[in-house]
């Protein structure tokens, strides 16, 4: 009797320990998968919001509700470089629509060493009318602009002032990473894992730029 009880106890302990280990391992794996999925989702959502904003703004290069105030839209691009661009447009400042007053919009990429956990991320700044720079950390790691002339030749950057009017199309490439690494592998820097999403738009339609 006593011996069999002991055997039962030992067996129960072994089985319990085994089940406990299985549970812990499963939980750890699930957590990691969850975090990975959530990280990817966040990455994709950030990229979608960013590209929506960029497409919304870039489609209005050279646009003004009162065209007489910006008669030559090919003069709208004021600065064109590989990671920054400044142009004239007509923004909806107060939510009631464009007001017919020419505004300037300046996009540029900040330096590395971003906030949060991922040191590769940089802030993409959007400056309206030379007001103080504003940007949010959506995990941008790369923001590249390539300019093409009418003959589809690449225009070297920074584009000199005399050649700004020869810009015919713009290619935008953006890479976004998760701002926080997977919790399981935070032993920086080697084992940190960041989800990445990439977007590229060639020949972004700038219908107002060359319409006159």
């Amino acid at each position, binding site marked *: 009797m006593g011996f069999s009880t002991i055997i039962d106890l030992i067996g129960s302990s072994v089985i319990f320990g085994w089940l406990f280990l299985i549970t812990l391992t499963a939980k750890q794996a699930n957590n990691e998968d969850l975090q990975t999925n959530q990280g990817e989702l966040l990455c994709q959502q950030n990229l979608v919001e960013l590209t929506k904003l960029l497409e919304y703004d870039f489609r*209005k290069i050279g646009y003004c509700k009162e065209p007489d105030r910006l008669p030559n839209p090919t003069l709208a691009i004021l600065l064109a470089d590989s990671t920054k661009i400044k142009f004239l447009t007509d923004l909806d400042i107060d939510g009631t629509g464009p007001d017919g007053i020419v505004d300037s919009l300046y996009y540029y990429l900040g330096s590395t060493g971003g906030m949060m956990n991922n040191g590769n991320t940089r802030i993409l700044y959007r400056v309206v009318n030379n007001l103080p720079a504003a940007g949010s950390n959506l995990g941008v790691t790369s923001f590249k602009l390539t300019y093409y002339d*009418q003959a589809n030749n690449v225009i070297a950057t920074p584009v000199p002032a005399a050649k700004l009017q020869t810009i015919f199309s713009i290619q935008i490439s953006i890479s976004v990473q998760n701002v926080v690494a997977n919790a399981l592998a935070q032993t920086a820097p080697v084992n940190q894992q960041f989800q990445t999403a990439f977007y590229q738009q060639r020949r972004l339609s700038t219908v107002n730029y060359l319409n006159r």
Partner: protein
Amino acid sequence: MGRQALIMVVAYSLVFLMTGALMASGTVDAFNNAMDYNDTGTVQNIAISGANLGANYVFLNKPGLAGNMWWTGWTTPISYNGGTFTVRMDSVLDMYGKWGRLQMTTVASYNNTNYTVTVLFNPSQFSKFALYAGSMTGVYFEPSDSVFGPCHIESTLNYGNPSGGTMTYGAYFGGKVTTKSGIAGLTSPAVLPTFAQGIQNGVSIPLSLNTTQLVTEAAGNLFSGGSLYLTLKDDSVSYKTSLAGPVTTKAISQIAPNGVIAIDKGTLYVQGELSKPLTVASLRTSGSTGGTVVVKDNVTYKTDPRTDPTCQAMLGIVGYSTINIDTTAGHSSFTVQGSMYSQTDGVQVVNYNTRPRGNLYVLGGWCGTQIYATSNGTTAGLPVNVTYDERYRVSAPPYFPGTNTYQILSWYE
């Protein structure tokens, strides 16, 4: 023992169910994100397609121009690519309170998402060209020529090198160029011009002078036969109908309330300084005489529109026949600020082969059936320097000849 096992199984099942649900929700969120972007893109494409179809209708049918019927748009939703779109047309004012512009609003719907595209059209006028030539017979753009503004050639654009020239670069076109019949080198060698904003061939925009409209707008101040000597004096005009005749001075608002002063079957002489919008025209409603313009001396604006954004002066010089740049003992160079239009001929520099050498500075543009030489290339005449008046991309002198088509001024989405 059995009960405990059952509890353990239930507990594990709950744990795995919750984990599965959490993972599934993440997947669903990612799918929703992708579908949201897809829906946005699709409704955008439907709206842009609808706007393009509407714009095509406007270009082909020219509602409200040249007697064409007005078009209200497509107000009944049209099915397209899984969604629908409607198009509405409105007539709108410009910032100066003038009618004539069209606004097309396209609204697309797809999966409970809406998207709007607003396009603004303006009747297109020939003043929008820095240079328009119906024909370039025997004439070509040489390396020293440059055109900074829209340019159209209603035939073949010729280019070449002057005799004995050793240029390694060609003419420069800073604005968009359109031609009806392409480009051709007229000399050998001939260096291909630079088309900084591109060139489009196969585009035909024939000259079109609406004499009836100009006669109507000149109204009671339409002069007939003989000569009309006009001296522009800011917001007034001094005029006489013979060289030695009496001079009458009137405000432009009085003599030309619609902005047009015209003479029919006669010759118009013009000079002076302007501070208001005005079109001066020499017409030929019938017969075979008249329709000539002579620029007697400089024609300038009171302030330079390139530096004064409030400048309202816009001059249109319209001739059925030749527009002559006269000679004057006062100076050899000439300045013409305004857009010139000749329906059957072009701008000619009088005695271009022998007159003292100077320059012809034009701020605006010129349109004509033919381009003529303005200097002999070396010792006489007026080499031309045309600077485009950027305001003419969206505006024009009053009742300046139109192309009978619309142009898109802006596209908002």
